[in-house]
């Protein structure tokens, strides 16, 4: 087994992640996040028109209710219209919009999907999302502290924070709407990344028992090298399945799959290059302080 000196590049690796996240945060400050109707309230309509159409045709139907409505094309043949309004359409307004589609394009209600979310739900969802993230991280921290030691727990959470930030950057750059599925995507990556990190930590824990005399650097380099093939192969198999979803999926699934793709890459990267070096920093510092 070849042992690669990862720790030598510790600063470079932290630097790369730092720069990506910093750039991302700047972009996020400029671009903002595209909060979807699940959070802001509003209506979204998907109409499978089945032939080419003009955005202006759609606007002619929707302008009456919301002049700021966002209309986009979807589908491989650009024959699907996606409409988002900031105004939550009432039941009868929805009826008028659907009637408009039926009159203009001759499509049936069976090819239309609409969703209206009131502002109350959005506020609740935001609260739920934050609480869910907090609890998931706390649960992970407690479990790792219990099974390993708290320094591993903190390092794992740092890697998770890294992944969550990267995913936020993806949402900001792509302007994919942040909806309920966003929570699912983030928590999936939290689950995936922590799984990855634990595999590396587990090896560190095991090697630590055998190699009492080896310093941190050697220990981490050896453990990472030994688990590298597994990390790469698992992310490959996972990426393959999500990529299939991304290529073949319907619009809602595409919006879910893209952040997941990036999240898995980030999760794999962070469990190798972020979590372990942070653990070393924590462990060294703690030992030095303890030596007094």
């Amino acid at each position, binding site marked *: 087994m070849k042992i690669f000196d990862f720790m030598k590049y510790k600063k470079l690796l932290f630097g790369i992640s730092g720069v990506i996240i910093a750039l991302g945060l700047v972009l996020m400050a400029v671009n903002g996040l595209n909060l979807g109707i699940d959070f802001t309230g509003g209506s979204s309509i998907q109409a499978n028109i089945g032939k080419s159409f003009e955005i202006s045709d759609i606007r002619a139907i929707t302008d009456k209710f919301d002049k700021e409505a966002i209309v986009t094309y979807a589908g491989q043949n650009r024959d699907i219209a996606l409409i988002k309004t900031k105004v939550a359409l009432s*039941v009868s307004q*929805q009826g008028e919009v659907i009637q408009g589609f039926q009159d203009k394009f001759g499509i*049936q209600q069976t*090819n239309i999907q609409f*969703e209206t979310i*009131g502002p109350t739900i959005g506020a609740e969802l935001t609260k739920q999302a934050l609480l869910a993230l907090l609890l998931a991280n706390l649960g992970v921290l407690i479990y790792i502290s219990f099974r390993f030691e708290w320094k591993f727990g903190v390092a794992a959470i740092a890697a998770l924070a890294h992944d969550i930030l990267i995913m936020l950057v993806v949402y900001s750059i792509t302007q994919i709407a942040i909806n309920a599925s966003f929570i*699912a995507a983030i928590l999936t990556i939290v689950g995936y990344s922590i799984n990855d990190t634990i595999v590396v930590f*587990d090896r560190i824990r095991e090697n630590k028992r055998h190699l009492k005399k080896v310093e941190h650097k050697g220990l981490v380099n050896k453990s990472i090298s030994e688990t590298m093939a597994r990390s790469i192969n698992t992310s490959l*198999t996972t990426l393959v399945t999500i990529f299939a*979803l991304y290529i073949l999926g319907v619009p809602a699934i595409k919006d879910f799959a893209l952040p997941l793709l990036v999240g898995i890459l980030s999760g794999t990267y962070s469990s190798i290059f972020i979590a372990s070096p942070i653990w070393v920093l924590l462990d060294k510092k703690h030992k030095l302080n303890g030596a007094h």
Partner: protein
Amino acid sequence: MKSKSLIVFLAIVLLISFFAYIAVYGLNIGKYEIVPVKNLIKLGLDLRGGATVLLQAKDNPNDPVNDEKMARAVATIRERIDALGVAEPVITRMGSDRIEVQLPEIQDPQRALDLIGQTAQLEFIEEETKQVILTGNDIKKASAERAPSGNGVGEAPVVSFELSPEGAKKFAAATERNIGKIIGIYLDEQPISLPTVQNVIPDGKGIITGSATMEEAGDLATLIRAGALPVEMETLSVTAVGPQLGANSFEQSITAGQIGILLVLLFMLFYYRLPGLVSDIALVLYTLIVLTILASIKATLTLPGIAGIILSIGMAVDANVIIFERIKEELRFGKTLRAAIDSGFRRAFITIIDSNITTLIAAVVLFYFGTGPIKGFAVTLSIGILSSMFTAIVITRYLLKLLVSTNLFKNLKLFGL
């Protein structure tokens, strides 16, 4: 011993293939019929089409929302929906003041939504004094009919009604003092008909004109029969998916899943060779187990749920990957094949448990906080994690040991070394 192992191995493979065949195509022996597993799994409204409405009762300080009113509201909504003839509507109370209505496969969601959310307070109001004479509660029967239209040409849809004895008395008195004047009929304070009283109506029978179509008259009759909602309901969210659109989503996701699984199977076979073949068999079994569990706990499969399963397949091979990499390491140390497999599994075990439990924590949190389709995603992800641990630790191990004990596969190249 050697040939016995091979026979057992082949028998297991045959058995798994047989179950896979039944799961996909079903089985029909005489009067016993096993339907394909996909027909047993309940699909969410995002895949079969349908409408979901979340209503919240508006609290009024003078007339607070209570349990009894909510129960009556549910009953009223149920009666209105039943009149539409929707198959399997699900009406659930959520929390203290919310009601969720699910209408699967409905073709005309708009009409249903119009019916569900209306308070439908029917009032007969004396035009002169603005006094309420009768309300919907006084009506005993209501039905849609055709009646000769006012101008005497053809017929028009109307709602004919019959009042309770008490209501009939009130109505008789009111018509008597309003001859030649208007008694307006209002639904939620909107006038639907403003007829002029021609003569006294003593028997409590009458008609309400003003409906444009029979369908409209039918809906009005339904609203009157079911009565007004005891509380005003606000629509918090509405989701409606056309059945055609849902079917498309389902097909596309299944295709994506099939291709994803196929690629994973090929990857494992080419990279890990003999153990890869074993993990492929375990992966087929894994997929069968997940689908069977989903069918037997009557979980609802949603679009994110399918994504969860597909994602879990990618992750399910992880446990196998951890084990196989360990075995390779042990082989490199010069251990014999059997010893390497034993210690590979033993050492990988703790890693697999620890890494999967942490993932499970995230899935459980998601289940607890998620609503609707997101909950479905958390369910399939959790089932996936547990099943993958089982197939990797138990099935892969057993099959791999069987294969090795046939003594047919001694070349370490077969183990990816």
